[in-house]
């Protein structure tokens, strides 16, 4: 009986957590934030033995509707978010690796672009994500292969509503930015239905003083008589993004749950001009459009000591890139017209089997079949006929794993994962991962963790087949990663809670793929680098009841991530060996502070990235300098509760100190800007 209770509690823990988060977000205005009892070591899920994981709570994910997952990760984790501007490509990278070393899943289905390998997090509205976690380094092997840096797990979940529900949020911000969010829910004992929609639009023409360029003032003879740094607007940076998410869940109440998630994206974004562009914005159009549909159907069958799950999914992506210029009389002619379509079919089965409270066995098999059609350029052949430069390829990606997790005593656990992958016709060797954890001290719940794994990442379809430049002879990247760390948790329910962790990691990556220019004028990928990435990650979380109705929450992260090129010199003059990889910060940190009083909430967000080198030699030139990056945002929210509805009003200030800064060379970021959000949640009784 005791064993059954324990198994039941193990299975129930995630659902209790869900319920807690729902409580946090919906009722904080009325009841204030709740400081939970700290988790004791005995409650550690056996599934998570030895894993290094960062989970995001609903407060972070649902902070405001204008945020993308890129924004959430920037201010709530220490992984590196490389942003090319507001509502522009944003990629994330763990522990000194590259964005394509981060595997991303949504409801279990991999959503990395199979052509590029990476994921654009600016295209994922955080309001569409109910559950997000980072699996650092080796821990990603539990979920997928190829995450040489780690993986990001995103998912939705039932709203747990009863009857009809509605939430509408309107956001209005600087630069004529409008964000609208609508959610309709319906739920009863068996059904949970939810429809969410987000529409964001802005000309995004923020002003900045251009330090990279001067405007000339000429006299009549065209002699320069004056020069000045112009105040320019972000030229050609507008965007219109629509997201619709439909979810239907059915719970039999007898251990079976069915789910259907369908997400449609329609994005139309201009690509902003560089600071060093001397073209007239009205004469050029540089635009990227995307339509994506992602759908996942899932079935979970849960019994007292085993669980079976199956998923089927489909992704369709259409992307268009148009670069045009006015050739006179307002006629815009294509300089580049590229189109690509991706069809991905997905299937997955997984099972879990508990033997007593000490053993858990899992097995997982997933298949992603990609069919890609890339048309990059229209040309006229030598015979005068038209032709398209591009490629059409398909590739199955199979990934399977089995694991055994053993916790002989409450204080100690060990887990072994064996994974194997096949991309196309090529198999990886067995990918092993070993995890252990143990309680060092019951006082303070001090837990030690360690893990080691091998991993591989296959070249992307563009790496192999893109025309021109694709290199079908590329080898897959491979790596070993080691992790070890300590965590603790102390607290008193309703008074305070303090948790923290520190971990050390080390990765050796061989055959790192990099695209380089060729003498023929195009880029081509090569396996050129061996990289040794290592460092420290620290996390801390403090919640304190300061006084009656006053509560303070502080959350901080810090990473030190040297990522060193340890390959052979490329030529005798190569100065990059032994140096930090370009565009990878050695230090990064974030702090979020939330102060609440009754139905008021004040939020302070801060993030930091150390200087990023723009050259592999780590030399800092006058034209290639990216100084350390600090950012501070604040917001103040007031909630109102009436019989007929919950209302809230929130004001936010981004870039509080109006810093003039760059995240990437020649890409200016906006100065101080403001947003206001109004939210209404009617009560249907």
């Amino acid at each position, binding site marked *: 009986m005791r064993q059954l209770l324990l198994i039941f509690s193990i299975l129930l823990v995630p659902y209790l957590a869900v319920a807690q988060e729902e409580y946090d977000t919906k009722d904080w205005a009325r009841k204030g934030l709740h400081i939970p009892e700290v988790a004791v070591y005995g409650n550690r899920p056996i599934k998570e033995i030895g894993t290094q994981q960062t989970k995001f709570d609903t407060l972070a994910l649902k902070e405001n509707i204008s945020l993308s997952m890129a924004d959430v990760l920037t201010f709530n984790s220490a992984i590196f978010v490389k942003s090319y501007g507001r509502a522009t490509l944003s990629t994330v990278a763990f522990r000194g690796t590259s964005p394509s070393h981060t595997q991303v899943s949504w409801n279990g289905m991999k959503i990395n672009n199979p052509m590029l390998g990476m994921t654009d997090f600016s295209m994922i509205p955080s309001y569409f994500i109910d559950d997000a976690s980072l699996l650092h380094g080796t821990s990603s092997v539990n979920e997928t292969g190829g995450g040489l840096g780690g993986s990001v797990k995103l998912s939705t979940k039932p709203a747990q509503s009863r009857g009809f529900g509605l939430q509408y949020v309107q956001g209005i911000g600087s630069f004529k930015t409008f964000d609208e969010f609508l959610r309709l829910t319906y739920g009863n004992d068996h059904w949970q239905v939810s429809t969410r929609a987000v529409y964001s639009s802005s000309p995004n023409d923020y002003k900045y003083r251009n330090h990279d360029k001067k405007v000339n003032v000429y006299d009549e003879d065209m*002699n320069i008589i004056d020069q000045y740094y112009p105040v320019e607007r972000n030229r050609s940076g507008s965007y219109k993004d629509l997201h619709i998410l439909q979810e239907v869940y059915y719970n039999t109440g007898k251990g079976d749950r069915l789910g259907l998630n369908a997400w449609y994206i329609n994005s139309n974004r201009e690509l902003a001009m560089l600071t060093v562009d*001397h073209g007239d914005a009205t004469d050029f159009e540089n635009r990227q459009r995307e339509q994506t549909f992602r759908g996942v159907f899932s079935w979970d069958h849960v019994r007292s000591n085993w669980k079976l799950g199956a998923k089927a999914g489909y992704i369709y992506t259409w992307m268009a890139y148009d670069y045009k210029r006015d050739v006179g009389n307002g006629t815009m002619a294509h300089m580049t017209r590229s189109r690509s379509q991706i069809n991905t079919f997905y299937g997955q089965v997984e099972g879990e089997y508990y033997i007593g409270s000490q053993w858990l066995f899992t097995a997982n098999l997933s298949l992603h079949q990609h069919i890609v059609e890339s048309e990059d350029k229209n*040309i*006229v052949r030598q015979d005068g006929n038209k032709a*398209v430069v591009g490629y059409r390829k398909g590739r199955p990606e199979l990934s399977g794993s089995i694991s055994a997790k053993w916790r002989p005593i409450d204080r100690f656990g060990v887990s072994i994962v064996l994974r194997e992958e096949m991309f196309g016709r090529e198999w990886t060797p067995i990918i092993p991962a070993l995890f252990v954890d143990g309680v060092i001290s019951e006082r303070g719940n001090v837990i030690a963790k360690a893990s080691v794994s091998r991993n591989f990442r296959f070249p992307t379809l563009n790496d192999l087949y893109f025309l021109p430049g694709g290199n079908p002879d590329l080898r897959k990247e491979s790596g070993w990663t080691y992790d070890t760390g300590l965590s603790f948790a102390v607290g008193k329910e309703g008074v305070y809670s303090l948790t923290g962790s520190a971990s050390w990691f080390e990765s050796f990556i061989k055959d790192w793929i990099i695209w380089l220019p060729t003498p023929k004028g195009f880029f081509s990928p090569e396996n050129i680098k061996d990289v040794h990435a290592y460092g420290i990650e620290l996390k801390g979380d403090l919640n304190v009841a300061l006084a009656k109705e006053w509560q303070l929450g502080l959350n901080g992260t810090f990473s030190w991530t040297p990522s060193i090129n340890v390959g052979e010199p490329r030529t005798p003059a190569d100065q990059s060996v032994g140096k930090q990889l370009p565009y990878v910060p050695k230090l990064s940190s974030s702090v979020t502070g939330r102060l609440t009083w009754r139905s008021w909430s004040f939020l302070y967000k801060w993030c930091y990235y150390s200087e990023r080198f723009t050259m592999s030699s780590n030399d800092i030139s006058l034209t290639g300098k990216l100084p350390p990056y600090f950012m501070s945002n604040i917001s103040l929210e007031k909630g109102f509760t009436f019989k007929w509805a919950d209302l809230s009003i929130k004001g936010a200030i981004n870039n509080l100190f109006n810093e003039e*800064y760059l995240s990437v060379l020649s890409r200016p970021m906006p100065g101080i800007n403001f947003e206001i959000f109004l939210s209404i949640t009617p009560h249907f009784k």
Partner: protein
Amino acid sequence: MAKYIRLTCALVLILTTSCMKWEYGIEEEFDTSASGEGLFICNEGNFQYGNATLSYYDPATKTVQNEVFYRANAMKLGDVAQSMIIRDGIGWVVVNNSHVVFAIDINTFKEVGRITNLTSPRYIHFLSDEKAYITQIWDNRIFIVNPKRYEITGYIEIPNMTMESGSTEQMVQYGKYLYVNCWSYQNRIIKIDTETDTVVDELEVGIQPTSLVMDCNNKLWTVTDGGYEGSPYGHEAPSLYRIDAETFTIEKQFKFDFGDWPSEVQLNGTKDKIYWLNDDVWEMDVTADRVPVRPFLPYNGTLYYGLTICPRTGDVYIADAIDYVQQGMVYRYSKDKELLDSFYVGIIPGAFCWK
């Protein structure tokens, strides 16, 4: 309570400390008029990063100054510095993805003017003080400009060329005619009448002719890269062509092996020898009937990306782009193949210009 508030205030103060300034440049004064001979190096920088730079090398003192445009003007050169020429003490630097050609004083490096709003400029050629042509990629037009007024004054439309696969490159003048090699997804040299600004003839060569020069005998030289594997335009063994400028006919075709990547055809000062890159550095008399068996400088592990010959001394300068994301290295050899100097410049040194 007060303790917590003090703690919070202290934390906020620490977090709001800032040091992330996007800096302004500081103008430096240069005067290289005394040095006489000098070599400008256009460092392309990385596409879309706006980190192109201009370096200046004094062969007499063997000293190099990097980022001279930025240091003299306190602003960036731009995105992808493609080429440079000098006319009457003014250097014209073509910055491809910045849609601009800068005019600079070649002794002080100070800007004296700029031609803007070009499509994707590659090279500039002067016909007179008030008329020049600027070739483009991704445009089927050559822009006609007035360099005195820094104005675009007209266009030459290239027949049988679409905007999207448009490509005109290097220009060589013979009398009133101008010859231009058409490179990307092209296979021809076009002939322009500079009095009427029209294309009057064209000559088909191999796939993708990359460079164009004219020797002491009024023979044009171009080298093709042969395209690439899988290209719908075709893929063939590259060739070096000698073309008679007067008759506009191919005199000689020197075939390379399939898969070779020859590029960067250059002349020495007397224009009686041509040089090119094909892994190694090659040298050949302009009257030769065969390509030499041995290279002028054999491949030694460097990634040769740019090449120039000193017009006075015959010294050979070769640029090594290394991994394309660090300062490239320029090697200087005497015409007797002795290494005289080497110096670091900017990212991806691709083009040279002699003062």
